[in-house]
């Protein structure tokens, strides 16, 4: 009844959070310093002008990493709960990007940046509120219609079906939007920057990073401190046992797809803001990278997916910074292969899906 004096064995979640934050900050700073050194060591920059560049690139890495992390969460959560590699998830992200584009373009009617701050906030929130539920429910619908009937089929069946769903979604987008780039209105003013240490750090990058972090923290809080979140973790660990404890597996799985879709939709929105275009096959590459991120972090593990997303962001950014962008994809897939070969459980291992 009374508060529990927790024995020293288990560090409390707050101190764990602080530890993770410290590690993350150290990693980011380390990346920046290494990039700085590499830029004047290999890239032929001077020591002084390499610093602002390193800083700026670190911010870039954080924002693309945040996008990958948001997508990776959908892969990892679905895998954690039903051991399905949901190949269609990248395309869910792509549809999110399209929907956000359609929403914003429909309201603003042009591609101009919106400099009126309250209006910008309303537009961005509106786009989130519009796209997140639709894409989330679409993801739930796909699970309900396609994956659920195959839940007890051999593992390969839903996997192949997921590939099929991916093709279907891509073709739907292709049919509706055509094969070229579609313009995505960059309503977030790109010339809003903060001068830090000689670099012009774009506020959009910061916005993307902060939005992603907020969503991830909300997810973390949801998973660890609510009834449904606990049910999700329990189902991931032992679906039968959790059912016998009264947790409705179907409902919980639907919820997982909902959350995955919602996060992918948010990633889609910020994608459009940052890169100014969407295309029907966007989900393929982003999806593959996010999947790599999930595997790298330990598929099934939420924190792992976030870490993996940022690592992929850093790798890609590092390659681009040093002028090896043509190798960045190659590098990412080499990493995927190496992880699968030597540490299939990823950096953190599969925490949530530790089955009986």
């Amino acid at each position, binding site marked *: *009844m*009374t508060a*529990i*004096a*927790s*024995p020293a*064995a*288990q560090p*409390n979640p707050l101190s764990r959070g602080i530890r993770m934050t410290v590690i993350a900050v150290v990693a980011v700073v380390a990346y920046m310093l290494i990039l700085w050194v590499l830029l004047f060591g290999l890239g032929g920059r001077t020591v002084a002008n390499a610093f602002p560049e390193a800083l700026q690139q670190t911010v870039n890495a954080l924002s693309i990493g945040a996008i990958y992390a948001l997508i990776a969460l959908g892969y990892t959560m679905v895998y954690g709960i039903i051991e399905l590699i949901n190949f269609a998830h990248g395309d869910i992200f792509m549809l999110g990007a399209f929907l956000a584009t359609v929403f914003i373009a429909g309201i603003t009617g042009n591609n101009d940046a919106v400099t009126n701050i309250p209006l910008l906030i309303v537009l961005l929130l509106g786009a989130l509120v519009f796209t997140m539920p639709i894409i989330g429910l679409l993801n739930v619908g796909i699970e309900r219609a396609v994956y659920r009937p195959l839940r007890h089929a051999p593992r390969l069946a839903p996997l192949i079906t997921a590939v099929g769903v991916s093709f279907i979604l891509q073709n739907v987008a292709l049919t509706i939007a055509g094969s070229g780039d579609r313009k995505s209105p960059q309503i977030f003013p790109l010339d809003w920057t903060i001068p830090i240490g000689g670099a012009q750090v774009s506020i959009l990058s910061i916005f993307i990073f902060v939005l992603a972090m907020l969503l991830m923290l*909300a997810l973390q809080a*949801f998973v660890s*401190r*609510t*009834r*449904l*979140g*606990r*049910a999700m*973790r*329990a189902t991931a*660990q*032992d679906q*039968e*046992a*959790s*059912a*016998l*404890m*009264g*947790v*409705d*597996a179907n409902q919980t799985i639907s*919820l997982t797809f*909902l959350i995955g879709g919602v996060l992918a939709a948010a990633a889609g929105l910020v994608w459009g803001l940052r890169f100014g275009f969407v295309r029907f096959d966007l989900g393929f590459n982003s999806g593959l990278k996010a999947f790599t991120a999930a595997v790298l972090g330990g598929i099934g593990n939420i924190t792992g997916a976030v870490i993996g997303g940022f690592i992929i962001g850093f790798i890609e950014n590092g390659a681009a910074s040093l002028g090896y962008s043509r190798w960045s994809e190659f590098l990412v897939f080499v990493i995927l292969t190496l992880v699968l070969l030597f540490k299939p459980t990823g950096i953190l291992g599969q*925490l*949530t899906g*530790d089955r*009986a």
Partner: protein
Amino acid sequence: MTAAAEVLRAKKVTKRFGGLVAVNAIDFTIPEKSIVSLIGPNGAGKTTFFNIIAGIYDPTDGAIEFRDLTMIAHARRAWMEPVLWVAIPAVLGILTALIGVAGAPQGTVILGIFITILALLASLVTGVARGPAYQRFLARFGIFRSARPNDMVVAGLGRTFQNIRLFQNMTALENVQVGMHSRLRAGWYDALLSTPRNRHEEAFSRARAEELLELVGLRGEGANLAKNLPYGDQRRLEIARALASNPVLLLLDEPTAGMNPNETAGLTALIGRLRRDLGLTILLIEHDMKVVMGISDRVTVLDHGEKIAEGTPEEIRRDPKVIEAYLGAPAE
């Protein structure tokens, strides 16, 4: 009928796995607030019988009635249910249309339409509410909607596992909170908006979980991951988790397996307390005869899927068939 006093009735329950008859035509009842034990040699079919009760398997034959409801794991003729909903209003609607065409006064036709709409609403309400009477009514037509394991929990059944199946990577407290899942209501919007309901439920479930941990003797262990608890404590935690759903009937599958005599004695006492203090009905599978004979009101003996004896511990102890099949085994 003494129906009210029986929490569970098994009627000629049979379960086959391919050619193997794991459970054969077992009739079995559990009176309210009793402790009933199920014993039998290894492979006798005890766990299988348990799983049928818990809604994991459907019996190949026969039926389980839990608190007067027939529970099955897989839907049967479920498609007929919506047909039934629509059938009555449809008949009414057609009748109304017919009398309308036949030239009945306008008032009558409007009344007919009104009645049709009422019937539609009524079937909708019954269909959604699904009261026990409605389910019995459906059962008479052979229509069963599935009672998945989680529905059994909602209906009032809690259980533990022969081989511990805690959520190893969650804390003891969280394990118990998961057990409470079906008794809590907070949805995703509550979580998202952090509504008062959410906060209240979180606080309540935490307090209640701590209470339950204390009840099973795990006071102060709430923050430990399940996998870090000693074996005996894990068994106790399973019981706390099972209790969290406020069950009417508690199924315990070999709760003392692997425990030392000291721990066993403690757990036996706990089971006794559960019935006395919480008024639970308990079905126990147990190999340890001291435990079984000490606390059971009634003992049922299975062997090769057959019920070979049933009675008070005294009667069982003396039953020659039991002695031959079970007690006479050299291991005991």
